[in-house]
């Protein structure tokens, strides 16, 4: 009897050892990704539930398992509030074994969660936010800034507009970190391309009535009115600019316009506008194929943020597979080492600063006559190669070798 007991004890001990070694590969026996996004607020159409669907599609397309362990997607609403975002992130990391957080639309939430994740050695995969300090002075070694940043938007739209003769600029800027970052980056690009800034106004975020600011923009006499805002602010400012006849003598440059904005504005109002995007559903066969699958679930075509969530998670799962573990340091090393090649990016590379550098596209919104079928909204004017679209690594980021 005593002998049997000893054998049982040995087997149990052995079982613990085996379980222990498996845990070293995949912590807690599960790869858990939290999609932390704006589910109901100003950005819920461009990210929100669509981002969650994109994440679920990524998990399914990867086979639901990585290294034999299940992939689980959870989601939560950060309401665009930094304190709520970091609170949820802490809870996820401490109590619910979340390995990585995806999306984090709106820069203030991303900047609040990144240091929490770095402290706990977990990964943040940003698709929604755009501020350049994310891969600059605020960079962390556990972060990937995947889809776009304000510099890329400015470089695409700003440079093109100046080259087409839009030399003098006036800004209507959303008065928070993202708007200011977008204005600063565009200013840099416009000046470098030989343009001139005549002035600007900071509108509180959010604003519904832009007429005062539009009058000031008209008074400035600038050729181009740059809209350094996003979401509902962009929609209302474009709509009212048409109403006030601003578009007769001046031109608008939407510095961050998403497919969802164009959809709700309608082509009659948005036509002719230049914009920069990381992804357009109707660009090639691969993007069409994926987008149609997305459409079946969401009944809307994906924005670049939603497509970015899918692509970044596939890359994350690939990196776990290649590294043979979900250990954050090793996975980050693999994510930087492997190029991104899918319907979203060709030869995309993640730098030491965490910024994913890939080609961007300059698009022009079609007129109602040019649009042949539902969601046929953009003409792709040109591809902006990654080296032109993104800035070289910012020395303000401590991870960048000087």
């Amino acid at each position, binding site marked *: 009897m005593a002998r049997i007991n000893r054998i049982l004890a040995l087997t149990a001990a052995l079982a613990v050892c085996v379980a222990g070694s498996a845990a070293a590969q995949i912590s807690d026996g599960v790869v858990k990704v939290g999609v932390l996004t704006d589910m*109901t*607020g*100003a*950005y*819920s*159409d*461009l990210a*929100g539930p669509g981002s969650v669907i994109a994440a679920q599609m990524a998990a399914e397309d990867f086979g639901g398992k990585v290294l034999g362990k299940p992939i689980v997607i959870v989601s939560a609403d950060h309401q665009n509030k930094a304190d709520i975002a970091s609170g949820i992130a802490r809870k996820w990391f401490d109590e619910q074994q979340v390995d990585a957080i995806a999306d984090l639309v709106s820069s203030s939430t991303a900047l609040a969660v990144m240091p929490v994740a770095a402290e706990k050695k977990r990964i943040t995969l940003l698709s929604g936010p755009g501020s350049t300090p994310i891969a600059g002075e605020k960079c962390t070694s556990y972060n990937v800034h995947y889809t776009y940043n304000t510099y890329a938007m400015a470089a695409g739209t700003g440079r093109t507009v100046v080259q087409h003769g839009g030399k003098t600029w006036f800004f209507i800027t959303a*008065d928070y970190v993202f708007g200011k970052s977008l204005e600063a980056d565009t200013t840099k690009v416009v000046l470098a391309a030989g343009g001139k800034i005549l002035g600007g*106004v*900071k*509108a*509180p975020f*959010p*604003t*519904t*009535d832009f*007429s*005062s*600011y539009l*009058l*000031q923009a*008209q*008074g400035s006499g600038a050729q181009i009115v740059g809209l350094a805002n996003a*979401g*509902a602010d962009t*929609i*209302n400012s474009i*709509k*009212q600019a048409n*109403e*006030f*006849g601003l578009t007769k003598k001046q031109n608008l440059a939407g510095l961050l316009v998403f497919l*969802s*904005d164009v*959809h*709700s*504005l*309608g082509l*009659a*109002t948005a036509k002719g506008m230049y914009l920069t995007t990381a992804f357009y559903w109707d660009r090639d066969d691969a993007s069409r194929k994926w987008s149609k699958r997305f459409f079946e679930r969401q009944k*809307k075509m994906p924005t670049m943020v939603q497509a970015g969530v899918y692509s970044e998670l596939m890359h994350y799962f690939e990196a776990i597979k290649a590294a043979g573990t979900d250990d954050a340091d090793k996975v980050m090393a693999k994510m930087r080492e492997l190029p991104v090649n899918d319907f979203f990016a060709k030869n995309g590379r993640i730098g030491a600063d965490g910024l994913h550098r890939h080609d961007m596209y300059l698009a022009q919104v079609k007129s109602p006559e040019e649009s042949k079928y539902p969601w046929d909204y953009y003409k792709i004017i040109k591809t902006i190669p990654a080296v032109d679209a993104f800035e070289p690594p910012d020395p303000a980021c401590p991870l960048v070798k000087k």
Partner: protein
Amino acid sequence: MIQVLSGQLLVGLINGSFYALLSLGLAIIFGLLNVVNFAHGAQYMLGAFVAWMGLHYLGVGYWWALILTPLVVGLLGVVFERLCLRRLHGLDPLYGLLLTFGLALVLEGLFQNAFGISGNSYPVPEALQGGTNLGFMYLPRYRAWVVLVSMTVCFTSWFVIEKTRLGAYLRAGTENSALLQAFGVNVPLMFSITYGFGAALAAFAGVMAAPIYQVTPLMGSSVIMVVFAVVVIGGMGSIVGSIVTGLGLGLVEGLTKFLYPPASDVVVFVVMALVLLLRPAGLFGRPR
């Protein structure tokens, strides 16, 4: 400088007429029913959406929407008053506030679920497209129309309430509804109609707003706070107070947007704090 200033003042006046139109309905409801109608913003949003749905699904144009939408939303208001709000009569006003706030959340949630946050675009009616150059600014024809119509509606409401028999009943009900009922006036019916009228005014403002602003589920909640401030500054329940204050605050806000834009979303509340310090009953209110 003068040119720019006059432009900004005119824009302020346009916004002010929206505030006046919206706060009028709130003031009437509060005056008679003693209900702080937090659903007012949602009813405004409902007005804009009913107009949009009419155009999109049924082909009902702007002019018909201007008449039909307030009727539809007003009727819904009457039903809501009969079924729910009535049961809270005589209780602390806080209960009515909670009920209407809840209704607003439910309505906004339903529309958000159905239409998403970015909402839809409503075109400016053909007859009101374009605009005139006034020298100091370009005035879109539609905005001029908004000022004209709001002024007319405000004046008519004021006239009905202050100068007609129906208005006299309303005012008497505001003072002492129990006594009015003792005189044989059907006060419960008056309550229903008043609430319905308030909701209809909100919906009317919603239709007026649809071609200017994007029709979104949250369009009401962004404007309702300012409108409440207008009612408080004007004196809770005062009709004239809400109209005058609405216009005045529009001007103040317009000036702030020009002089120091970052303060433009708080200036209304600064004014409110000052007024409450100096005249706790509001500019036109009487202490109860």
